[in-house]
């Protein structure tokens, strides 16, 4: 990276004991609810697969539990510091991300036409890329201040950062993940107060590249074509979406009952990962789906609230970035399952089976909870104002 990054070092990042536990309990509760619900669904959708593959019905559940445990541990560690310490690591995390994405392209384990994972697929760098990009852009924009309105400092640098990350992800290929990263970056750029001309250029160019890739990458083009058919007749949906719709439809209002679904036993591929929302619809019905959506909405609202109450621009952008990342991703997942957008594989945060996704999402929540303590900080008039960064 050629961009200069000014890192303001502080002497200490210890958290004042008085506000140590003054984080947003509601966010914690909503995520905990999603997590417990998700673990339940992981067991529900994998017990027989675990039995088939590993002779252990708890195999996948245990792996997910370990990932959740690691994520929670990560959260607790993060909570020991003031989140501004993360500024020191923005560049490092970005370098690790870019390095692992690059490494992946050359040495990754190719699985079914795409190269997305390392270490027997247990680590997927593109998941880290989401959080790394948010951390980096929040740090970078907040340190630039008004200068992001400048064409060279703002637009060009922004495009290079986002462009490189997205380029590497598209190479896997994982177009939708790249699109998600671009969308999060764009949101941050937008709320940071970029000029409308810049937004128009970024949006226009980025959007054009995305549409171009979507229509030219063979598997993406096929999915878009199939999706256009679906708009006319849902019966023409691609297999996964059709089976997902069958699951949602057979669930009806109350669902067929937890554990009673049949779509997970083969008909719906990836029922425990990207397709889990359909199984929730089948077994717990519209009610179950609405509960999950309500929890996700509530989590998003708390996240946005935390962003608004953050004590500086960095906290604001970081909180906002993490919140929109999880919200966009959930929205994309549910939109795919309901055939609202072309088919693509995106996990549902905290619910889909997947270690890296779970771990990184929980780290994101850890950072959000950390930022949520700013509200308590602001309430204490006698407190010295924290050092302004950038």
């Amino acid at each position, binding site marked *: 990276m050629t961009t200069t990054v000014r890192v303001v070092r502080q002497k200490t990042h210890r958290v004042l004991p008085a506000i140590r536990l003054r984080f947003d309990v509601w966010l914690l509760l909503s995520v905990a609810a999603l997590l417990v619900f998700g673990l339940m669904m992981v067991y529900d959708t994998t017990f027989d*697969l675990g039995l*088939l*593959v590993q002779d252990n019905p708890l195999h996948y559940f245990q792996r997910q539990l370990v990932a959740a445990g690691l994520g929670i541990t990560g959260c607790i560690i993060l909570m020991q510091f003031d989140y501004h310490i993360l500024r020191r690591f923005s560049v490092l995390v970005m370098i690790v991300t870019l390095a692992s994405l690059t490494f992946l392209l050359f040495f990754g384990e190719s*699985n*079914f*036409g795409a190269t997305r994972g390392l270490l027997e697929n247990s680590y997927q760098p593109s998941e880290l890329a989401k959080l790394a990009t948010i951390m980096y852009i929040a740090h970078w924009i907040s340190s630039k201040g008004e200068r992001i309105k400048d064409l060279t400092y703002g637009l060009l640098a922004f495009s290079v950062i986002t462009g490189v990350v997205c380029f590497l992800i598209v190479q896997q290929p994982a177009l939708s993940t790249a699109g998600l990263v671009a969308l999060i970056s764009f949101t941050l750029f937008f709320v940071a107060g970029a000029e409308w001309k810049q937004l128009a250029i970024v949006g226009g160019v980025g959007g054009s590249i995305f549409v171009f890739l979507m229509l030219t990458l063979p598997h993406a083009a096929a999915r878009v074509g*199939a999706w256009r058919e679906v708009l006319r*007749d*849902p*019966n023409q949906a*691609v*297999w*996964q979406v*059709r*089976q997902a*719709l*069958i699951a949602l*439809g*057979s669930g*009806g209002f109350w669902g*067929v009952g937890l554990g009673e679904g*049949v779509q997970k*036993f*083969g*008909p719906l*591929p*990836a029922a425990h990962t990207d397709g889990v929302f359909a199984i929730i619809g089948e077994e717990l019905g519209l009610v179950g789906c609405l509960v999950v959506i309500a929890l996700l909405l509530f989590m998003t609202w708390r996240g946005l609230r935390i962003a608004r109450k953050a004590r500086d621009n960095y906290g604001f952008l970081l909180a906002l970035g993490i919140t929109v990342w999880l919200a966009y991703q959930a929205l994309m997942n549910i939109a795919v399952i309901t055939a609202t957008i072309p*088919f693509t*594989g995106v996990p549902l945060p905290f619910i889909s089976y997947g270690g890296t996704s779970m771990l990184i999402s929980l780290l994101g929540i850890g950072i959000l909870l950390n930022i949520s303590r700013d509200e308590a900080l602001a309430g204490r008039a006698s407190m010295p104002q924290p050092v302004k960064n950038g």
Partner: protein
Amino acid sequence: MDPLTGKRIIILGLARQGKALARFAAAVGASVVVSDLRSPEKLAGVLQELSDCEIEFVLGDHPLSLLDGADVLAISGGVSLEMPLIQEAIKRGITLTNDSQEFMRRCTAESIGITGSAGKTTTTALTGVMSQMAGRRTWVGGNIGRPLIADLDKMGEEDVVVQELSSFQLEIWQQSPHIAAVLNITPNHLDRHKTMAAYVDAKANILRFQAEDDVAILSADDPGARSMSSLVKGRMRLFSTRYPVKEGAFVHAGQIWLRNGKDQVVCTLDEIRLRGPHNVANVLAATLLADSAGIPLEAIRKAITNFGGVEHRMELVDTVNGVQYINDSIATAPERVLAALSSYHEPLILLAGGRDKNMVWDEWVRQVKSRCKAVVLFGELAEMLAERLAASRGPLAAGISLPTANRQPPTAQIVRVNTLVEAVNAAANLSISGDIVLLSPGGTSYDAFTDFEERGNLFRELVKGLGDQET
């Protein structure tokens, strides 16, 4: 010289298979005795056909004296090993055999054998089509169609033989095909095999006698089939609709993959012309069988995208006024109906009925209620099924019909009629464009027909009649 030359062979049963074996044995110089419980009058036609062969007939009974001086006893699939005559033969050390076993002993072509509790016929037929698509001369038979022993002399080493093998046939086998597949094992035919262990044991003969250069193909999703992996002596290949297996065929990300050192996409799930999730497993099995026999991927793909099914097995008869009529007359048990129900996502009008063989209908009631917009009941079962449906609470669901622009919400109802003719007419009146009328009776055909084929053929004619009325 043939192993049977000069031997005295007793053939029980003068049906399709017995007839073919008798003709073959006589031709290779065995001394052939055929015994059938039916009288000479009833068998006059068959006797006439075999009049050119030197065969001794014992009709109307199977006397124990048949076994005197016999070397080999050939039995047909329908006969139980518990029968006193067979028990006596085993005691005397007489070799048991059947036509498919005798064929396997002499077959020099590439031999493929398929067994399982469900999906055998479809997989066998599809594998045959794959082989044909590759330009190989292909013989499909076994449990279905013409007994292959009749064509033995016409087969060459480059030909491909695909056999569907039932547990009855395999029970007495002492030889396994070069490529063998076990699709699944669920409790079935327990009236005949007595225990599940005996049933599994019989099926296992398809790979028990294989050598190191043979190939065994097993379902990774089915615990019964998978449990046979300990018996595999040659190369083992698995197929799974659930997860990527180490070596074999599987579904991943909406595509069928063939893994054989490297990963290759065979086709997407949407390209499979056969309907229903259960057929995906059959496609995977056929793909592996064909690949093991050296059939190129291109031919495999072409067969999958073109093969539309076997007669009377979820066979699309015709589309009249936008309504698809499906003939699944083979469905003589509720489980088969469930497989059919899960194969369609359109609004369903189910034609159900026939004669019951004391089956369990609970899941049928549940699935019919959640998936069908209407049920037309006919035959002996109609009354019982109507009561069962009425007894379970709630109306029929609107099915899983997805809202499309100009479709009215379907009206749920149960209609009772007497005959299949009335049933088809009732269904035609109930249906609107976009629906599927599915004949998947769940009961046997013996209340009004000789067999399921006659029932299916009548259904076809009735549907053709509907089409003619419209034009």
